[in-house]
Every structure is written in C-alpha cells, then in structure tokens.
C-alpha cells in the first residue's frame, strides 16, 4: 500500500426499502446504480477501503440537537435515524482511528432540517451533519469543527442550527437562492450576533462549472478554513451541482467533485442531495471515494462528459471573481457585533415544510453573549401544532446563560401559554419536554 493512500471507511446504506413516495426523487432506486458502479469498479477491494454498517441514532443523539415537535417519533421514520446514525458511525470510525477518512453514503439527506422540526422539508427531517457534530463535541471532546456544504441547495437547516455558534464554522457553496429552493444563503448571511463570520455563504450563478467551483475552493473556502483551524472538517456532500441533475442548473462534473474533495480533504463526508441517479451519482460517488482515499481518480468521467460543452462562460467566471472578492472582504472586515451583552437579539422566521405542506412561524431570541453561543429561546407555532416554546442552553454555555435558561424555563412553565415546553440543557446533559396538561416532564433523556 502506497503511503499517500488513506484508510477510507464507507458507510453505504441505500435504504432499498424506503421512499418518501413511489415517484419522489428520494426513493428506493436512488443509490442502486451507485452501488452497481462501486461494486463493478471493485472499490471495496482497494487497499485501505472498507465498508461499514450504519448504527441507528438514539433518541438522545437526536434530542440534543433538535427540538422535534411534538417528539422524535412523530417526525421521523427508522430511515432518518439510520441516516443520522450512519453519519455518527462515520465520525466514530475516524475518532476511534479505525480509518483516516469516512464517507456516509446514506439517505435521506438532512441539511434542510433546522433546529426546530415539525416535519420534512427539502426531503430532510433530521440534520445528519448536526447529529454528527454534536456526537463529536459531546462524546469525543472535539471543539472546533467546520462543515463545508457542497450541495447545490443552500444548507439552510445547518445554517439555522449553527447560526449562533462561534465554534462551528459553516460554509455553503450553492446555486444562488434567487434561482432555486430554498431561496436563502446570500453573502450577507454571515452568522448571528454571537458568531459573526462563522457562517459563510457563497451563492453561485447558474451554469457554474468545474472552474468556478475550484476557484471558490481556492480563493474562499481554503483560506477561511486555514484561518479557522478546525480539528475536524466535514463535507456535506450533495451531488446535485452535477450537469445532469434534473432539479438544478449547474455544470459541475464528477472529476470536479473528486478534485474539490482532494482540495478540501475532509475527515468525514455525508451524502446530501443529488438526483441524477444514473448519469451523475455513480460517477460523483466514485470520484469522491477515490479522492478521499488518496487514489488516482484521473480516469473517472461520465460517459457523456464533454469539457468543452460544460465550460462556464466568461460572464459566469467574472461574476464568480467578484463574488469571491465580496465574500473575502466581508470575512476580513466583518461588521462589529450588534447589540449589548445580556440583551436578547430577536429574529422572526416563516418556515415552509415543502414535503409535508406545513407552515411555521417562529420568534427566536438569543441572549447576546461574548462567552458562549448564547441562550436560545424559540417560540414556534405551526399549521400542524399550537404555540410551543423551545429553550436551548447551548454546548459549553457560560454560567449566566445557564442561569438565564433555568429562569426562562420556570417562567415558561408558569405562563400556561404553551402547548409544549422543550428544554435542551447541554451542560446538564439533559433534555426535557413538558406539555401544558402536566407539570412533570412528558419525556426526559440524559445523554
């Protein structure tokens, strides 16, 4: 085995018996041809490459990340717990040093799932990457983590979860929100008042090709990562920037995906979207696996790959040049943190769960804090569920945020305004859920 090869663990779980519905893109067939390709190429026989079974994520792993309304079982199926568990298995293999790199090729995806979950949006119910990040922080002692989201759609769920967290860097490259779901991810969205600069958005124009993606990697992603110095880098590896994807408009190739992963060199990759299941996924997944394992990927290409036809226009290149400069300018000279410590910063959000047809109105208040991610209190009312409140005392919370959290929990219980009161208390390693019918917790987990 040559020394530049890395041990790569692949958690391949195609969930051949689960679909959102019979003709939905997120269906049984999705990874079938990828498996054919990986098997035929003999990927699992390459030195250092191994295949692993996913674990099933426990309720505790989910509840320390998400406020599931009314509870985990109501918004998930076993498929979601296995996809999230697969991401955790990837992290576990790396942290236990059984492999150097791991790729969770699991479905369904997760990056549109936000802090509060009323249902499925953008094919996602649970945020697989966030479940994995909180496993790393809670159980492995990892503190600084970067997630680079290379799905074509803005990773709005992951952004929402880590918006206030200065220790988790979230970078998303995606097709410009003015042209595609979910319509967010603009340059000025760069993190909450406690975590300015820890969110980076790079909205790319339609028809961005290999050149554009790799330019962004070189000029924006790698320098920001270099400065942040994460202990672990995660690629939220959507494959729908591919030129054959049926629901997007980009011109990225399998070779480009492989090269991007070679540059990024993530410890862990988690499959996100990608619905060109015959023309793209077999080749992009092959390229990513080879790149992560440090094997030669120069012969990976799609049967209909034509670099001339896919070359991005000069206009797109110019636009991307300007975009990179803008993002770096904002990163180098971020606006001063707004607000006064001890006060709440407030955002109102309307969220639409496209898969389940649920609408949600949220008011999120976060305690401005220079010592931690800040106490977070979310009031939520959905078309499917009455007004409830979610209180998160964040990971590594400071003492005053912990005390404020306990005070707000007492007040919420006394107010009698909420159908559900949910608490995530990370320093206390405790999650609780109270209903308005009952003063004792409906459910309580220690993790």
């Amino acid at each position: 085995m040559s020394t530049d090869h890395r041990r790569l663990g692949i958690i391949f779980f195609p969930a051949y018996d689960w679909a959102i519905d019979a003709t939905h893109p997120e269906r049984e067939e999705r990874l079938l041809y990828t498996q054919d390709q990986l098997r035929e190429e003999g990927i699992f026989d390459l030195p250092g490459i191994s295949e692993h079974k996913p674990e099933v994520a426990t309720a505790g792993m989910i509840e320390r990340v998400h406020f599931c309304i009314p509870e985990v079982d109501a918004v998930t199926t076993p498929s979601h717990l296995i996809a999230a568990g697969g991401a955790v298995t990837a992290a576990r293999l790396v942290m236990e040093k059984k492999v150097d790199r791991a790729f969770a090729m699991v479905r369904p995806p997760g990056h549109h799932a936000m802090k509060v979950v009323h249902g499925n949006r953008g094919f996602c119910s649970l945020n697989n990457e966030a479940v994995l990040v909180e496993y790393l922080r809670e159980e492995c002692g990892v503190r600084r983590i970067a997630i680079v989201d290379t799905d074509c759609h803005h990773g709005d769920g992951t952004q929402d979860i880590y918006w206030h967290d200065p220790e988790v860097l979230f970078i998303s490259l995606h097709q410009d929100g003015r042209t595609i779901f979910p319509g967010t991810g603009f340059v000025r969205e760069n993190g909450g008042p406690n975590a300015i600069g820890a969110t980076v958005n790079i909205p790319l124009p339609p028809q961005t090709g290999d050149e554009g993606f790799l330019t962004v990697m070189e000029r924006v992603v790698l320098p920001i990562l270099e400065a942040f110095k994460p202990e672990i880098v995660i690629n939220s590896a959507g494959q729908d920037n591919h030129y054959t994807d049926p629901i997007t408009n980009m011109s990225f190739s399998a070779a480009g995906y492989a090269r991007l992963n070679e540059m990024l060199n993530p410890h862990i990759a988690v499959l996100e979207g990608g619905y060109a299941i015959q023309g793209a996924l077999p080749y992009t997944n092959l390229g990513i696996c080879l790149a992560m394992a440090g094997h030669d990927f120069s012969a990976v290409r799609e049967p209909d790959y034509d670099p001339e036809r896919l070359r991005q226009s000069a206009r797109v290149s110019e636009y991307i040049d300007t975009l990179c400069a803008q993002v770096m300018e904002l990163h180098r000279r971020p606006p001063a943190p707004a607000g006064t410590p001890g006060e709440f910063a407030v955002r109102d959000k309307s969220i639409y769960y496209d898969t389940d047809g649920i609408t949600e109105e949220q008011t999120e208040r976060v305690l401005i804090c220079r010592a931690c991610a800040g106490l977070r209190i979310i009031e939520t009312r959905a078309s499917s569920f009455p007004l409830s409140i979610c209180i998160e005392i964040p990971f590594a919370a400071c003492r005053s945020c912990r005390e404020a959290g306990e005070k707000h929990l007492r007040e919420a219980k006394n107010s009698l305004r909420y159908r559900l009161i949910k608490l995530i208390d990370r320093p206390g390693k405790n999650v609780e859920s109270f209903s308005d019918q009952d003063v004792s917790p409906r459910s309580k987990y220690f993790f």
Partner: protein
Amino acid sequence: MLLGIDVGGTHTDAVMIATNGIHAAAKVPTDHEDLLASVNAAIGEILRDVDPDAIRQINLSTTLTTNAIIEEKLEPVGMLVTGGPGIAPGHYTIGRHFHLLRGAIDHRGTEQEPLPDAELDAAVEACRAAGVRVFGAVTKFSPRNPVQEEQIVRRLQPDADFISIGHTLSGRLNFPRRVATAFYNSAVWRAYIDFIDAVETGVRKHGISARMDILKADGGTMPAAVSRTVPVQSILSGPAASIMGIVALCDIDEDAVILDIGGTTTDIAVFADGAPLVEPDGIAIGGHPTLVRAVITRSIGIGGDSEVVVENGDLRIGPRRRGPALACGGPVPTLIDAGNVTGTAQVGNPTASAAGFRELAAATGIDPEELARRAIARAMEQIRDAAHGLVTELNARPVYTIHELLTGKTLSPRQVYVMGGPAAVLAEPLAQAFGLPVTVPARHAVANAIGAALTRTTMEIELLADTERKELSIPNLDIRQKISFQFTLADAVAAGREHLLAFLRRQQIEDIDDDMIQVVEADSFNMISNYFTVGRNIRVSCQLKPSIRAAYREAVR
C-alpha cells in the same frame, strides 16, 4: 455407492459409501510431483474391497490448481480487456500479456464507446507473436452487456486453445475480480484438463464407469465436464470438503463454530442455522481478489505440533512448528506433549513429554503439569478469540435495507464441532475456553473424504430484468431474452428457478427439486424518469446451496 477422494497436502483420502455404511477407506501419502499416482493409488486400495461396477459416482477434491498457483506454474495468458472510465487501470492489470483496449459499457449496459477492431487486431497479433495460446476476454459491465467480450471472442476463436469469457464466470459485478478470475482460469486450464483427462483414463482402467464431479471451494461440486471450462473453481476445495464432512457426520441446525485442528494450524468456520457461510464475493488468489466463492474460513497458527515456549516468564504457543511432539521424537515441546503431561492425551512416548515440560517449567518455578495445563488453556483461548473475531466480523457485514438492519439475524454460536488429529485431546479445554458444548464426531479423521463423497452440486445465478429495455439476462448461463413491460418480480423469480433447474438437468444432475433452490435476493426497483415510472429494474439471485446427499447420512453416523 459413492466414492469420495480428497487429494490433500499430506495424504490422499478415499472412502466408499453405500446407503448402509462405509464400505472401504484408504489413506495414501500425497506425491506432489505426481498427484495422478496418488489418486490411482487411493482408488487401487479402495478396489481391493469393492467391485468397480458398484460405484455410481466419484467426487474428487484436488489440490492441482491450488498447487499450480502457489508454485506459479502458470501458462502465459493473453488478457484482452476494455475498461473505459473509472478506477485507474493499474488496479486490474495482471500478467505480462495484458492489453487494455478502448471501449466502454455503462452500468445500464449501454455501449458508450465501441471497441475498435484495429486495436483488437493489434493486441491479438502481439499475443500470437509472443506464442500465447490461452486468453481472457473481459470488459467492464459485461454482465450487463457482453457485446464487447463477444467481439473479442469472435476475433480470438480461430487461434485460441482456450478463452475465459468474463460474464460466463459470474454474474456478479466486480470488474477487477472478473479480470483476475479469467486470468487464473486460463493460466491453470491446460494443466487442469491434462490432469482430468489422465484421472478419467485411470478411472476407466480400473473398470469404473461412474460419472465424476469435482469439488469446489464453496462446499459443493461441479460436473467434470463443466469444470473443464472453469478449472479455477476447483481451487482450495480441501477445507470445504472437511466442513461438508462435519455436515454429514453431525445434525447441526444451530449457529455453530467448526474447528479443524491440524499439526500447524487450525481452520475456523462458522455455521448459521446449521449451514456453512460462503464468502459472498470470493477469495483472493495469488494476492488478487477473485469471484471464486468459498466457504468462509479463517486460519490461525495453532495446531497440535505448535511449539510451546516460555519467554521472559510468559507462555507462547505457536505459530511456529519445529517438528512433531517430543513424544513422537520431535525437537521441542508441543501442545500434544502438554496433553500427555496433563493426561488428556496418550501419544507416543509420554516420558519424553514429561521431561520436556520439566525443563520448561524449571525456568518458571511453576509445576510442570500446571504449566502444561496453562499452555493448552492459552492456546484454546487464542482459537476462541479468533473464532469470536470471525463472528464479530460476520455480524458487522453491511446490509442494504432498513428491514435487515433492524431485524437482521445476529450470529451467536451455541455449539463447537471439532475435527482433526488433536481434536479429542483438546475437546475438554476447548469447552472451557468457549463456554459451549464441544462435539468431536466419531469419524472426524476421515471427515474430508466423507464430505467429498457426499456433497452435492452447487450453482448460483444472478438474474437482471429491465422492463424499460424489455430484457432479461443471466450472465453466467449466457442467457438473454426479451420480456414484456408487464414482467414482474414473481415472474423473474420463477424464470430464475426455471433456468437454473434446466441448466442442472442438462448436466444430468439428479435429485434436484425446486425446493432446493434458494432465492437469496429478490428486489424490484421502480425506475422513474421525470416523476413517471418508466420500468422496473428487477434483480434476483438464486442458488443451490452446499448440501449433503440425505440418503447416505445415516450410513456415516
């Protein structure tokens, strides 16, 4: 009556079994330079007690191909291969006459790039000039569409003595394994058919007119006629013969560990619900993974003749063998000597064993008998740990459906079966180490030949039906036929069974009925394009599992 012959590394064993019992048994030394002579000698011994006309069936397990590969007695093979895009060709290049040609087929079986005749001509010419007479024709995704393999075969046919054709070797997808399997199959072909010709001549000379089947590494047999096109399948059939012997000798219906303890090593196998587990992809040959299926076994360097050493006050057993036990005139104390000292064994000269352990113990201050007891316990714990490791590994194998992941079977052995020379001596300490009941079957010393005699044909097929393209294929039977858009999963399962049965009947394999065919996989995927169902992608995998001729089971108990 059935004649089973196992040409092993040390001995060639033969047994003659009728429904009413074992009628003859023979054991002759194996002559590595002349395996044929060993086979003839064993048959000669058997025929002292048996009338040749009474023999209905011969099953032969031979190390011929195994030895040819280990000793690198391989004929040069012209490999004609189209790879197309994908992993780097360095991963599947094999042999000195490897020709990578242009041409590509994708995962749906669409020919994406033709194979230029001029390139093919040049490669064939180069092989001819080098004096190459046997070939491998392999293309990526040939089980999906063999068109380019067929093109290569057509071009080669006038000149080749033999061609291994990728898709006929297995329907499973794994291009580098298909390349290596074709290579080794052609490389041993000539030596193999010369041997089989000679064995058949020898058998006729002995007055035997019975049909002959050849053992495979998966615990089953193939007709000799079939084996002439897939000689590589005869590799490593010895361990499988022993395991099938245990199946014949015992009533196993639970999860179990099977140990074959030899002089130098112990082979470990695991049974699930009484059936041996077969490597789903295949074994590695000469360091190359192949598509040759084999019973899953692990070998550990502990056997009866393993040296017992005290090193810095620490006991170590094996993996070295420096000779037989002291009790049998060997140079160093071994596990067998330990058995003599503790009193579980009565082998050779126990005084020599006792002296050896007194000397070992002197350095440690431990009582010699206690030291011998600890040596055996340590060795058995190492075997147990290796067996547990194998079980853990098997339980960790990936599955691809939520149903299997949540409700799938977990192996949990309830019983240990032991065979091999030191089996009886080590049964009690093994029971201690495993914490499970241990069985040593009465006739375990000839389990290999009994297994060889009684095991039956195995065969597997992979069927793919694509109702969008209206095509059904079974690559290793070289079947391709038209189907309708309405073709269902049930139709596919029925077709798979039918074609497999028809193939077996063509080989005149008796006593096969439909319920012996096991459907290993049956999946149907709706193929969707733009939110419309355009067809079904149906995959069925059927097999005839390794099994023992039931009518003869009582005869060997």
